């Protein structure tokens, strides 16, 4: 599902407090216009814009959780709009993700925003990529569908093209053959992707599977997959992955076995590295 996009004050009427579909709201506008936007006075004017106030307040009225990531919170117009909405609908679950590790670097406006709620929290030391990696891992989701399956969106789009009755459409023949070409090319790419995946070595396939499981927070199954492959493998990459995953499990587990596995795997990595050196010499 493609999101509803709001990239300027004039399009704020597109969004809803209780959205039926995903919404992308760029409060200080986008660059995808014929003229330069985001001038300081335009951003500052947001605070008094009734459409912006109504839109943001409708969202705050309904939302349960609000997460700010990848934003410094230094534009007064944007931040005051958020602060006012958060003050009106108090005690929402608010999270601010800070790139640096020093809470003192949080902007004053961001501090004011978090102060509107007794349920707010500051998470330090994460950029957007790292935050979403951890979030997806904790939710056991793993890599997004579009990353796991590069043709997912293209395939979905292709199946939904021109589903209406062709008899009612002018130039239906031309449109139909163009859509068919598009679909057949997507199908050809899917076949090529299948061939590429089937052509992967056993090691590459195991590593890909284990990384997928690890990203989805399923470290125990990732370790099982890796250990099964490692028994007959002299791949440094496989043993290194065994060691990393076992170490991660061991850090938070009272069971000593994963740490023993990590120790043995790191020793194997070192042995293989030293063996490779001898072969080169």
């Amino acid at each position, binding site marked *: 599902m493609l999101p509803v996009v709001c990239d300027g004050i004039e399009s704020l009427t597109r969004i809803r407090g209780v959205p039926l579909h995903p919404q992308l709201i760029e409060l200080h506008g986008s660059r995808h216009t014929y003229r330069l936007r985001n001038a300081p006075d335009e951003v500052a004017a947001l605070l008094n814009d009734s459409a912006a106030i109504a839109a943001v307040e409708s969202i705050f009225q309904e939302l349960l959780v609000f997460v700010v990531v990848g934003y410094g919170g230094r534009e007064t117009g944007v931040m005051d709009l958020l602060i006012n909405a958060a003050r009106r609908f108090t005690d929402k679950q608010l999270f601010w993700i800070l790139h640096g590790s020093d809470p*003192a670097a949080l902007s004053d406006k961001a501090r004011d925003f978090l102060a509107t709620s007794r349920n707010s929290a500051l998470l330090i030391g994460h950029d957007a990529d790292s935050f979403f990696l951890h979030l997806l891992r904790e939710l056991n989701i793993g890599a997004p569908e579009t990353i796991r399956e590069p043709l997912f969106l293209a395939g979905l789009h292709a199946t939904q093209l021109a589903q209406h009755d062709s008899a009612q459409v002018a130039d239906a023949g031309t449109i139909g053959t163009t859509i068919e070409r598009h679909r057949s090319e997507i199908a050809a790419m899917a076949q090529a992707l299948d061939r590429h995946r089937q052509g992967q070595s056993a090691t590459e396939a195991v590593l890909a599977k284990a990384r997928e499981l690890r990203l989805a927070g399923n470290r125990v199954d990732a370790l099982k997959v890796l250990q099964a492959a490692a028994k007959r493998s002299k791949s440094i990459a496989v043993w290194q992955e065994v*060691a*990393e995953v076992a*170490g991660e499990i061991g850090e938070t587990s009272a069971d*000593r076995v994963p740490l023993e596995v*990590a*120790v043995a795997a*790191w020793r194997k990595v070192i042995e293989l590295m030293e063996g490779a050196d001898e072969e080169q010499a």
Partner: protein
Amino acid sequence: MKSKPDRLLWAAARNKLGTALATLGGRESGTARLEEAIAAYRDALKEITHEEMRLEWAATQNNLGTALATLGERESGTARLEEAVAAYRDALKEYTRERVPLNWAMTQNNLGTALATLGERESGTARLEEAVAAYRDALKERTRERVPLNWAMTQNNLGRALEILGERESGTARLEEAVAAYRATLEEVRPENASHYFAMAQRNLGRAEELLAERSK
């Protein structure tokens, strides 16, 4: 002769092996795992110099210091603890306050703990004074606003070093400072967020207050 990338990968593997061994060693009684961890860290340090991988080198020195300090606490004598102090001081050459303030503060705290343990085992007060100075340095960056639980832990450590100093010195000034440090700890360590440390800090405060009361009679 390994190429530079190979050397660094090999050193990283040794460092991670050391960390897994040190974690195991910390959970077990005995010293064998810790000895192995120390050997792994030292092997890693043979391959990386502080000129080419400054922060990794400092991290490995800090890890080495922690493994040596844990071993030193389990063994009699002071040799391991002296080595731990040296490793922490080496780490601080690259973990500078300007470059990595929280890592600098963490290492100052670790250094303080190794010095305080040495100070407890030795007569005199010089090591303990050094420990107090290291903890006070750590608190310059480990502030209550920035890292409240780390601040509280360092206050507790500072309290312990001051308490031992107070026991060895006449007067009440050090003991009063120790009580103040323990009280500061309890401002942040609560039963709901750190029950084990709360109980420990309460015991520490009670003991220091008792000592202070006796000394004040």
